[in-house]
């Protein structure tokens, strides 16, 4: 986000700050940006912010890694093994329609109230988009390229490494990118809806309970910044690894 894209947020922040100084808003309900920034400075200095942020990121990345790895495997099986697709495909496509939050009660019962349940939930959120996009990426491989692999008598492993994975990579990246976003949303969701613990969601829940709206707003700000950073990082990694497309 550069240049003109920054104009609107800057104006909103200025209006928000001005509303406070003009006495138009109640700082207990809507603390101005200056107070939120002051809270940011305090939390960062005292270490509370890093503790919560670290807890959320570890949870997010652990769930993402598990979900994405399982999703990649599932997508490869669906894409490369016709029989598996016929057997499992229809059930999977029905199953993926269930909103991921519907699983929270079951996961809580099955995996307890600790960290494991939250990571499982995040993994589940990351799993689906990776399966769907990996599967689609493989199905979209040009038949003529498959023929080249056959003509050159490549082994299944060579075909996977030289043809299937690179050809499906743009689509797999789309899946991973979505998974990264979903995993972060799920991390916050898990922290809200499951047991309170360390994490940005937990910090916000605590802030709400103590009526510290500056803490809540700080949480919102951090969620946005982390989401933006993850999104940006994924796009940069994608551009780097798919350089052959842009020459």
């Amino acid at each position, binding site marked *: 986000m550069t240049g003109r894209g920054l104009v609107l947020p800057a104006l909103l922040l200025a209006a928000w700050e001005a509303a406070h100084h003009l006495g138009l808003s109640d700082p207990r309900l809507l603390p101005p940006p200056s107070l939120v920034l002051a809270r940011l400075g305090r939390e960062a200095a005292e270490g509370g912010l890093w503790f919560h942020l670290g807890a959320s990121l570890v949870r997010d990345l652990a769930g993402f890694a598990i979900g994405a790895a399982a999703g990649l495997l599932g997508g490869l099986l669906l894409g490369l093994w016709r029989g598996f697709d016929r057997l499992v495909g229809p059930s999977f496509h029905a199953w993926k329609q269930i909103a991921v939050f519907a699983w929270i009660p079951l996961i809580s019962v099955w995996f307890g109230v600790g960290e494991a349940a939250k990571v499982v939930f995040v993994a589940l959120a990351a799993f689906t988009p990776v399966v769907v996009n990996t599967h689609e990426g493989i199905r979209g491989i040009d038949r003529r390229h498959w023929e080249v692999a*056959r003509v050159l008598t490549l082994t299944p492993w060579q075909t996977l490494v030289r043809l299937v994975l690179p050809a499906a990579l743009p689509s797999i990246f789309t899946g991973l990118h979505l998974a990264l976003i979903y995993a972060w949303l799920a991390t916050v969701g898990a922290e809200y809806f499951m047991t309170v613990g360390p994490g940005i969601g937990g910090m916000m829940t605590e802030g709400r309970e103590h009526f510290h709206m500056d803490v809540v707003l700080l949480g919102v700000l951090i969620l946005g910044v982390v989401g933006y950073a993850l999104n940006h990082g994924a796009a940069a990694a994608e551009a780097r690894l798919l350089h*052959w497309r842009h020459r």
Partner: protein
Amino acid sequence: MPHPGTLSLDHVGKRYPVHGGELEVLRNVTLTVDPGEFVSVVGTSGCGKSTLLRLIIGLDGSYEGDIRLDGARIRGTSLERGIVFQEHRLFPWLTVEENVALGLLRSRLPEAEKRRSIAEHIALVGLAGFEKAYPAQLSGGMAQRVAIARALVNRPSILLLDEPFGALDALTRAALQTELQRIWQAEGITTILVTHDVAEAVYLGDRVVVMQPSPGRIRRVLPVPLPHPRDRADPRLADLERNVLDELAGLA
């Protein structure tokens, strides 16, 4: 280096199941291609000439009759048989060098030999200096040269070409035809070229096989008794070209 192969087709036929019946695309094709010979196959679209190549390369195993290379019946694809398709079919995520190397993935040659063969074949098709380029950076003609190098790198005993220059502009096509003649002479490889370009078929082939459609079968085989390398402006080529065109016109 493997010797150039002898290809024999014996009463080859091919039918496709279609809705409510069968479509006969090839009937009774019998032809022997001698070691090192260059045979051109011409015909209108739908005469089954591309199907014939798919059978020889081994992409389609269900046919009638017998296809043998050096006496052994063809079973599936093999590194003994190389093919160049109408589209280059390079893998866009691999460089020129890596694409050519695909042809040696299943080879038992030592690494150093492989590297030498890859470099030699890139030079053979005139692309030395472009080893690290990606297909998207190449022109259509250059990409097709890479496809030729990929087909030849494992030194197959027969090279099949399926309308390899059909998608190129006229100037590039003429240049690549001359190149192909040089490469074929340098490698001494048995070659079958399928094309609908009569001038190309006559310019390159030792024999021209004229096919006719519905069902696809051989109408006539015309020898081109001129030594290689040939001069495109040779009036004898023009006469032969007319003969082939007359054969094709007789089908109408």
